[in-house]
């Protein structure tokens, strides 16, 4: 298998696809499978035979289209007709009307076209369109043409230049310029060099990376290949949490296929370039997603962050230069190479280019996975894409950035989503969780919930995070049980600022964000909890009597 062969596979595959008039894509990712996606898939395979249209109609299992609340979801191409809540019983009707008679079944179609209107799908370009278990599908969509282009026509420096020109920033949350990171590792002394792809998505309610791996695993592998070629690495580790069995299965299959086409191995596409990828499984610690903790875990040690310097770019895995990159960042790389860095840099905002995937959850009409250009406002995400708050309730706040994100009030809804704007108001990009809260949510209770999460996930290395967060959580216990005093607000502020400024790693540094932002934007609720012992959302003060206490 050489460079030209990839092109041949693509051509063959496109011809093969052309023979079909329709393509029925059944979403078989973690959201839709529990709702019966495999039964729906089987029903379609049987129905097309029953109606004798199997020659003109390809039934494929694909990854997620994003509308996770209305699964199983099915897309029929051409025309991108999205059917929602499909059951095996409905399948015959869909095939009969849509395929045989050419009349889409309007009553079953997804009713919120606005969900897709403001999205911009770059990373999720193939999600819901290709069968993730077939490498040919990916190649037919132009996949692996970027690595071919790199190997055939580009120098490592040229690749890094393109990535730098794109102004892509790390999607793991911190937003470090990717091109700069690559050139640091490329210039670092020491051999061998390593790549670690981070798929340890531990935030509650966040599933963007999982969806990507389930829908388009080869995009991640191609990104790793290009990065490896650019920085001179021979070995890559893909670190994935064990809680993602379907993603693991998909990636294992993808790696095996890539090896069989000699896209991975000792002699990639007969060019002499050597690169291999190995999966490593996380054991359930949230902190393992932190870049130095992930290194410890890959090495087989306790996933505990360590102080920097030395930075992983110089001293990472086993003391060797290591590039650590979130999988979403890596999935951006092939399209940057295909279309050029300058093209990419025009998407989004001048300082934050490209798109970002978000898991939109909470009190929203259209929960699911979305990908939006950087710079889109929170209002557009919550009200246009998300369709507002259900059951006529009132919007109260939006939590951006997962458990260590910030709770932002309606006054900040016109804030553009980019790294710098979010940091300015006390939130973070994080791994891309957006949780919408309505007036039935108590902000004190919300801050307490996320503090509890971080208490459980603290590794125990540094004092502020280990010994401090638990004390903050106890102050919240008092607040929600009616035992707090006004001074406790000052205690919360003091302790939270300390934890933010003094913690060793990102977990501790961002853990107080929900506390600090709710204190900043929803202080009235704290005062009410202490002074009046009331909770306007009716969440708190429900605990049983504690007996004789002061």
């Amino acid at each position: 298998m050489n460079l030209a062969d990839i092109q041949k596979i693509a051509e063959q595959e496109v011809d093969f696809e052309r023979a079909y008039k329709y393509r029925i894509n059944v979403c078989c990712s973690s959201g839709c499978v529990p709702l019966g996606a495999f039964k729906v898939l089987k029903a379609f395979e049987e129905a097309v035979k029953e109606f004798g249209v199997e020659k003109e109609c390809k039934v494929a299992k694909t990854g997620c289209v994003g509308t996770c609340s209305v699964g199983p979801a099915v897309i029929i191409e051409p025309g991108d007709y999205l059917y929602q809540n499909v059951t095996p019983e409905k399948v015959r009707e869909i095939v009969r009307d849509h395929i045989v008679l050419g009349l889409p079944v309007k009553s079953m179609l997804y009713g919120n076209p606005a969900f897709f209107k403001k999205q911009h799908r770059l990373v999720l370009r193939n999600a819901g369109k290709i069968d993730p278990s077939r490498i040919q599908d990916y190649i037919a969509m132009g996949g692996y043409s970027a690595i071919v282009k790199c190997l055939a026509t580009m120098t490592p420096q040229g690749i890094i230049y393109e990535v730098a020109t794109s102004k892509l920033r790390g999607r793991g949350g911190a937003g470090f310029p990717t091109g700069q990171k690559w050139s640091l590792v490329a210039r670092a002394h020491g051999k061998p060099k390593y790549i670690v792809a981070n798929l340890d998505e531990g935030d509650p309610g966040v599933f963007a990376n999982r969806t990507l791996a389930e829908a388009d695993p080869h995009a991640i592998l191609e990104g790793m290949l290009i990065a490896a070629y650019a920085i001179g690495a021979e070995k890559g580790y893909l670190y994935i949490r064990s809680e993602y069995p379907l993603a693991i299965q998909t990636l294992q299959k993808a790696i095996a296929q890539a090896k069989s086409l000699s896209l991975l191995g000792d002699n990639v596409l007969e060019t002499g370039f050597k690169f291999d990828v190995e999966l490593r499984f996380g054991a359930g610690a949230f902190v393992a997603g932190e870049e130095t903790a992930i290194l410890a875990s890959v090495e087989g040690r306790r996933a505990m962050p360590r102080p920097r310097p030395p930075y992983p770019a110089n001293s990472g895995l086993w003391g060797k230069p290591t590039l650590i990159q979130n999988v979403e960042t890596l999935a951006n790389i092939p399209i940057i190479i295909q279309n050029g860095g300058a093209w990419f840099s025009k998407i989004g905002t001048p300082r934050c280019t490209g798109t970002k995937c978000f898991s939109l959850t909470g009190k929203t009409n259209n929960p699911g996975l979305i990908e939006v250009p950087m710079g889109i406002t929170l209002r557009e995400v919550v009200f246009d894409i998300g369709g507002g708050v259900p059951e006529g309730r009132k919007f109260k706040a939006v939590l951006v950035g997962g458990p260590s994100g910030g709770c932002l009030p309606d006054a900040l809804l016109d804030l553009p989503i980019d790294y710098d704007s979010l940091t300015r108001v006390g939130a973070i990009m994080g791994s891309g969780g957006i949780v919408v809260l309505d007036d039935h949510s108590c902000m004190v209770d919300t801050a307490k919930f996320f503090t509890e999460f971080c208490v459980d996930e603290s590794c125990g290395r540094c004092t502020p995070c280990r010994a401090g967060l638990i004390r903050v959580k106890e102050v919240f216990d008092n607040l929600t049980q009616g035992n707090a005093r006004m001074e406790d607000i000052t205690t919360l502020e003091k302790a939270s600022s300390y934890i933010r400024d003094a913690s060793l790693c990102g977990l501790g540094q961002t853990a107080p964000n929900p506390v600090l932002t709710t204190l900043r934007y929803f202080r009235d609720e704290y005062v009410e909890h202490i002074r009046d012992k009331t909770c306007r959302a009716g969440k708190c003060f429900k605990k049983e009597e504690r007996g004789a206490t002061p």
Partner: protein
Amino acid sequence: METVEKTRVATIWLSGCSGCHMSFLDQDELLIDLAKKIKLVYSPIADVKVFPENVDVTLIEGAVANEEQLSLLKRARERTKILISLGDCAVTGNVTALRNTWENSDQAVLQRAYIENAQVKQQIPTDVPKVLKKVHPLHEVVKVDYFIPGCPPSAALINYVVTELLAGRTPNMEGRSKYG
């Protein structure tokens, strides 16, 4: 005849061993100087039944462990300008609070004292103030203005803090306060 009105000082003994009061008395001859400036209005070493009004400074030894102590502490807070936690029990809970490490410590501590360790007539007394669920240092219950840790705090430290306060200055505890 007194020309200057003396500072009204009280001391209270809650759940503690009285060691802090001993240390207070260990100020020895310095007590003579102190006595010129203060009037002791309430103390376990003075026979006064009710905590008086208008107290300037109250030094409290011991942690809060039962309801009687709780009400006394709250009354003292209401009637005192400057309230000082004296000694580790008042500041941290100390040995008194070690029962907090037990489950249902209010019950367990009585069980241990009056049943398990009693030689004769094992019974939990009922005509004594109710024991609190947990033992608390003073500042968990009321606002405390100054802290003098130590088990016991040295006579010199007590004298330093009291003298500074009488002179209208804020004591500096850096390098002075010491637990244990």
